[in-house]
Structure formats: structure tokens, C-alpha cells
């Protein structure tokens, strides 16, 4: 187990190193200078330009620039965001909790919802309910993230104004509220984006889980369970689900990139102040260090996510746990 963990950690570090190399290549292969926007920006003072030059060693030979860049990364330095006039690390660090909150809720919600749908479908496999749920899942599964986000914004803030139109809190009044009111204010703002992301992610889970359950059902031990006189429900819930959860843990690892991508659009459309919004806005301001920082952080999140999923898998499967 420890060896396995160690191996995966090394692998994760290698992955991040390669990601860093790719982003470095991106910066330096780009036609023109991606930093020209920074260097041209009149609101960027000399100190920032100097920081940038130091970070990327812009006037040094390429290999030296690379070494410098990797060294800075290793220390957690992601450069200077001129549009925020703060270190990229700080910008992302202050935005990250909001993104993680959104993703965590959507992750939990979508897996719960997805598994539930799959259970209902498998319990009634072949029925009209099964087919209807399959069709609905497929519909939402095929939906581009940003489109559903736009539609839900349209539906629940304009047509049926149940939710505030954007942001994580009431920008004007939040700081004047009492503790309870602040919590309520946050929840009110969180609900719609979180629900939207949940609805975006759940169909994938449902489809995957349904397939996993159907894969498990012909297994001999399911027949054994049936032979014991268990009801179909008990069989599904106890024997099938437990085994079909193993592939779902793999899905957990695989779903991070999609979830992150979804969070980007959701944050943009609901003005949710997470790293997605920061990066998407950085596209507009051509704040390249922030974009690159976002790419690197996103990759780290995905790597860490799949690492955690692997660990969870190893823990959940008694056949692997022993090792």
C-alpha cells in the first residue's frame, strides 16, 4: 500500500513537471510575446514588469529561462497577475475555496443523484421508467455546460426570479449582515450554480453506474444472493451496488476534468468568484500569467483528484486493501 502510494505520488510529480514544461513551451512558442499585453498595459508599473522578467527571465537564453521557471514553480510562484495586481498564487488561492466548494457540492450531489437514478433504472430495467430516465440522462449528458447554465440562469433568475443573478454573496449588503443572515445569503447564491453543475454531472454518473450495475448483475454471486432468498431490492442495494461502486470510484477520478470544465462555465455565467471566473476573465484582459497559473493549478487538481480516487479505490476494494 505504501509502495503503491509512493509510486503514485512520484507519478503525480512527474505529471505536474510535464504540465509545467508544456505551459512553458506554450508561452515561448506563441507568436509574438504573450506578455506584450502586460508590458503594454499602462496600469502595470515597473515593479510588476520587473517581477515578470524575473519570473520568466524574459531576456535570458531559453534553457536558463526554463530552469528559472521550473524553479519558481517548485516554490509555488506562479507569477504576477497584472489585472489583479497581485501574485497569481494569491489570486488563485483566494478563488480556489469557492471553486472547491462548488465542485464538492456538485460532486456529492451528482454522485448521489446519479447512483439513485441508476438504481431506479436497474430495479425496473426494461420498463418505461428505465427508458425515460435513460433518455433524460442522455439529454442532459449531451448538453454543453455553458448552455445549461445560461438556460438555468434565464429560467430561475429572469423568468422565475427565485435566485439572485450572480456572485457568491450580495455585494453590497453582505458585510453588513449578521452571522445567520450571511450564511443564508451565501446559500441563496450558492444553490443555483451548485444545482446546475450537479445536473450537468449527474447523467454521466447515472449512465456509468447503470452500466456497472448491469455488468455486476449476471455475476455468480448475485445468483448466490438470489438463491439465499434476498429480494431484488436487497440484492441491488447490498450486493450489486457495493460491487458496482468500485467502478464508480474510478469514475470519480475520471470526472474531475469534466467537473472542472463545467465549473469554469458555471462560474463565468453565475459570476461565481472562483478560479474559473478568474481565469475566464483573464482571457479578456489577456492576463497570461493568470491563465497559465490556472492551467497548472487545474492540472494539479485533476492529478490530485485522480490520486485520491485511486487511494479510495484501493481502500474500498478488499482485494487491493491487503496489498
Amino acid at each position: 500500500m505504501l509502495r503503491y502510494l509512493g509510486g503514485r505520488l512520484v507519478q503525480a510529480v512527474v505529471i505536474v513537471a510535464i504540465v509545467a514544461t508544456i505551459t512553458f513551451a506554450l508561452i515561448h512558442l506563441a507568436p509574438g510575446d504573450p506578455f506584450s499585453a502586460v508590458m503594454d498595459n499602462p496600469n502595470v508599473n515597473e515593479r510588476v514588469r520587473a517581477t515578470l522578467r524575473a519570473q520568466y527571465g524574459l531576456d535570458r537564453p531559453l534553457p536558463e529561462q526554463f530552469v528559472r521557471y521550473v524553479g519558481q514553480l517548485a516554490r509555488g510562484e506562479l507569477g504576477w497577475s497584472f489585472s489583479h495586481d497581485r501574485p497569481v498564487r494569491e489570486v488563485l488561492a483566494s478563488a480556489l475555496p469557492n471553486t472547491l466548494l462548488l465542485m464538492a457540492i456538485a460532486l456529492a450531489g451528482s454522485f448521489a443523484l446519479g447512483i439513485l437514478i441508476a438504481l431506479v433504472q436497474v430495479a425496473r430495467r426494461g420498463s418505461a421508467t428505465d427508458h425515460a430516465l435513460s433518455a433524460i440522462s442522455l439529454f442532459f449528458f449531451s448538453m454543453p455546460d455553458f448552455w445549461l447554465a445560461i438556460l438555468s440562469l434565464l429560467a430561475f433568475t429572469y423568468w422565475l426570479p427565485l435566485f439572485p443573478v450572480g456572485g457568491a454573496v450580495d455585494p453590497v449588503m453582505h458585510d453588513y449582515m449578521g452571522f445567520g443572515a450571511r450564511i443564508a445569503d451565501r446559500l441563496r447564491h450558492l444553490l443555483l450554480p451548485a444545482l446546475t453543475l450537479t445536473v450537468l454531472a449527474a447523467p454521466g454518473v447515472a449512465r456509468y453506474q447503470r452500466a456497472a450495475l448491469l455488468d455486476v448483475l449476471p455475476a455468480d454471486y448475485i445468483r448466490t444472493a438470489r438463491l439465499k432468498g434476498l429480494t431484488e431490492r436487497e440484492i441491488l442495494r447490498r450486493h450489486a451496488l457495493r460491487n458496482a461502486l468500485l467502478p464508480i470510484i474510478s469514475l470519480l477520478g475520471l470526472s474531475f476534468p469534466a467537473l472542472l470544465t463545467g465549473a469554469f462555465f458555471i462560474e463565468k455565467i453565475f459570476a461565481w468568484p472562483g478560479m474559473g471566473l478568474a481565469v475566464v476573465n483573464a482571457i479578456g484582459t489577456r492576463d497570461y500569467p493568470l491563465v497559465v497559473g490556472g492551467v497548472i493549478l487545474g492540472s494539479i487538481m485533476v492529478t490530485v483528484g485522480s490520486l485520491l480516487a485511486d487511494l479510495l479505490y484501493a481502500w474500498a476494494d478488499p482485494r487491493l486493501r491487503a496489498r
Partner: protein
Amino acid sequence: MAALNRARLLCALLLCACVGTESQSGKSTGGTLVIAAGGDPDILVPALLSSVQAAEIVDQVYDRLANIGDSLNILNDAGFRPRLADHWTWSQDSLSIAFHIDPLAKWHDGTPVRSNDVRFTFQSTTDSTLGSGIPALIANIDSVATPDSATAVFWFHTRTPQQFYDATFQMPIIPEHIWKGVPPSAWRGSEQAKHPIGSGQFRFVRWIPGAVVELAADTANYRGAPKLSRVIWSIAPDFNTAVTRFLSGETDFFEALRPENLPEVAKHPELRLKPYRGLAYSFAQFNLRDPANHARPHPIFGNRELRRALTMATDRANLVRSLYDSLANPALGPTVRAYPTTDPNLAQIPFDLARARQILDSLGWRDANGDGIRERKGRPLQFSLAVPNTSKQRVQLAVLLQEQLRQAGVKVDVEQLDFPVLMERERKRAFDAAIGVWSTQPSPGSIRGTWGTAGSRASSGSNYSSYENPVFDANVDSALASFNPAARKAYFTKAYDTIIQDAPAIWLAEPLPTVGYHSRLQLAPLRSDAWWAHIADWWIPSDKRIPRDNAPAGTATAPAESAGRKTP
């Protein structure tokens, strides 16, 4: 004199805004004004700001020596009201004006306002390392002297009709003790630029980028406390959100509604609309110099006939109707109709697509390969039109123009740029064409900086097109030097005629902005050049206040936590 002026102003206010329906008790100070803002201010330094949000905020926090009257008279000091200077005296030869600082005036940190602050403001503004565009407009001011701590004397090179305007309007006064430690080259990005300390009736409380800028009443102000206890700019991530927040009552005031929003606002009985006269005009300007080598004319736009053809190919009236409906007029030229010096019947280059095609043909630009785009010597008639991505309306303007010019066989690539980046390209004259808007000043003289030779070559100059015509310059100069209103108008008309026929830009729209506001809000008159000029006189009757009005000003807790931003 100051007291008298203010009393008169108040009377005017009572007459026009409240028509006596409110009891005196309903006018107790208090209330929160929430303004819907389309974006963050760029920088809260008067000499450096370029966004309208920044101007709105800066004008509340900082005071000028004297304020221009609502009639926007710029000749001598008629209509100007005392601010930091409680009175002023002209020298015999009118080549200097002595401003006497109000002895009660204090900065928000409690330090008294002194004449050295005025001198410091002038010196730093004109410091070339600051990179401000204002020096081009105040070139007539020679120096500022401080015979004593309460008197600042402005010395001028020549006697002109708008000496007084130059001295007061262009320079809100900034505190020397706050800024003197920072070299002007480092003002951008400095902490002081983010947390201004001024002497206005509102003091700065906080700025959470992307969320809010908050000001609170300066209750100890030398001019008395404002009627509102707080003013908040609620910064929306996009136009949609801004409108929705306004419609839902989250914000009280919305500047520059678009025509398509008007019906929606009308559906809300608690919301009011109010048009006002703006001083802005928009245009698509051409770079007359080669971006690669400023010594050469631009390969396309260097030709006057071609530029005229492009204007001819543009159905400006239609374009303006499309974008603004009735909330704008086609621009007459580099000016606005509100100036008394502007002749509303200035001759225009007419919309004539056939003629435009003819001209382009005759210039040798022909579509030889049948792709719909004209070429000459293998070079297609194609250029990039830069537009700030922050304004969807300007992007729309660009796309509309793109299609209109396509009809004439001209290919336009719309290039959306972040506003500061676009600004810098323009400053470096490194662009082909760009959509721009000038929010002009009360004086038509600002045209010297934006289209005159004076603003053409210097990188701090705002004549990004590098349009240079001595006839134009001479007429503008004559106009500005003339004390006779009729003569002024005649000279300006000649100047405008010249530049319109030279077509360094396609003059697009002169918006007639319409603000939306909540009916509980009692507005003061909206000044044409700056609707926000009298926010300190706006008020909310006590019986119409809602919970957010009564939240004690400046008591927001833990802003760092809520916005994830450190406030030092």
C-alpha cells in the same frame, strides 16, 4: 459669496426636484445609494484615470478649487461655484488668479488643505514622468505660486477666455503629504491610487475589485455632510447582470440604459427614467500613419479620398438607429451638439455607397479575384478594427461597421482587446483602426488634444489618428482665443468643416444617455458632462428608506474574508 451661492443652489434644487411634497423631517441625512457599475474603475488618481467609473468616484472624493456651473459656461468665471477656494481674485492684467483656500477645508485624514497642495497638484500633473494627458489641456498655465499657506496663485502665459476653466476644471486637488513620497512614475499601481484620500463630501471606504466601491459621508466636511450617508458602486460582471440587479431593486441607479432596456424598466412602476444631455461622441478612427513606421503615411488610410469613401460607405444614420434607437444622434463630427459653439447643421459626407465604390475603383482598389474584397497591387483592402472587449455595444458597433464596409468590398477584421491594451496600442499608434468614444469636457477646446497637431506626435497626446492639418489647428486656436461667442462659433465651424471633409474617422454616434433610478431616490439636476456632479445633494426621504439605507455607514465587517481580498 460662497454661502450665497450654495443657498441659491439649494433653492433651485427644491424647486426642480421635490416640488414641495416632502416634509422637512423626511430630509434628514441618511440612506444608501447603490449605483450599478459596468466595471471596476481603472485607477483612482484624477490625473491618470480614463474610465467613467473612476471619474464618478474621484469626483466625490476629491474637490476642485471651483466647480463649473450647470450651464457649463467656460468663459471666465461666470457660473463657477466656490469649492476648495472660497473666493478668488483676478490680477489687473488677468494673467494671474489668486485662489483663497477655504480655512475650514480638511483632508479626510484631518490634515488641513493648504496652498502647497494646489501647487503640488499642478507640478505632479505636469510632470512628464507621470504620463498624464492633462498637460496638453493646461499648457496655458505657466506656474502656481504660494505666497501664503491659504493662497495659491495661477500664472498664465496669455490671456484667454477659458483661463479660469483651465485652472479649476482639469485638476481636482490632491494632498501633497500623501503623495510626495511616491515618484510620479510609480503612481500607477501604488497603494495611494487604490485608497484615495481627498477633501470631498464623501470619503473612500473600500474597493473590492469586481464587487463594490464604497464611499461614506464625510460628516466633518467643510461644506457640510452630504444628504446620503453612503454611496456604493455595485460592480456587475456583465451588462445583463447589471440590468437584472437594477430591475430587481438591488441597485438604485443605472446610467446609460440601452434602448432595449427601456420597455423593461417601464414595466416596473417603482423605477423612473430620465434622459440627460451627454457630452460624448463615438467614432471609428483611422491611423493616418503607418503603424510600422510613423514617418510614412498609412498604406491604406494615408489617402484622404479613401477615407472619405469609407465614410460614404457607412450608413451612419441607420447604424445609430440600430444601436441606440432614439437614444443617440449621428455624430456631427468631433464635437457634440450641447456646445454653444457647435453648429447643428455642419455639412456632412453623405451616405452614398455607389459613389464610395466609384471612388475606391478610381483609386485602383478593385476586386480582381472575385472574392468580394478589393485589391490593389496584390494587397487586399483589409484592415483590423480594434474595439474594447469590455463594451458589448462597441463590439456591436464594430460588427455593424464590418458588414457595411463589406458591401463596399472592404474586409474588416474585428479585434477585441482589453481596454488598457487597446489604450496602449493607441498611445503607441500601433493600430490600423479603432472604435473610440470621447467623453468630452465642457470646453470644446479639448479637441486640440484629441485631433490637433499638438496631440499628434507626443505619446501622451490623445490624437491617436495622427491627424495633422494646420488649417484645422489655426481655426481651433482662433476660436479658443476669441472672446466673442459668434466669432468662436464661426472659427469652430470652419475647424469642424475641415476635419469632417478630411475624414480621419467615421463619426458615429452622439448618445443621449438615459438614466434609470428608483423612485425613492430624489435626484439633483444631472450635469451634462457628469451626471454624478451633485450626488452629494441627492437624498432619500426617511419614510422611503429600506433596510440597506439604515445600515450604519462604513461598518462593514471583515471585508477581506468576504471578498477574498486583503485590505492593507
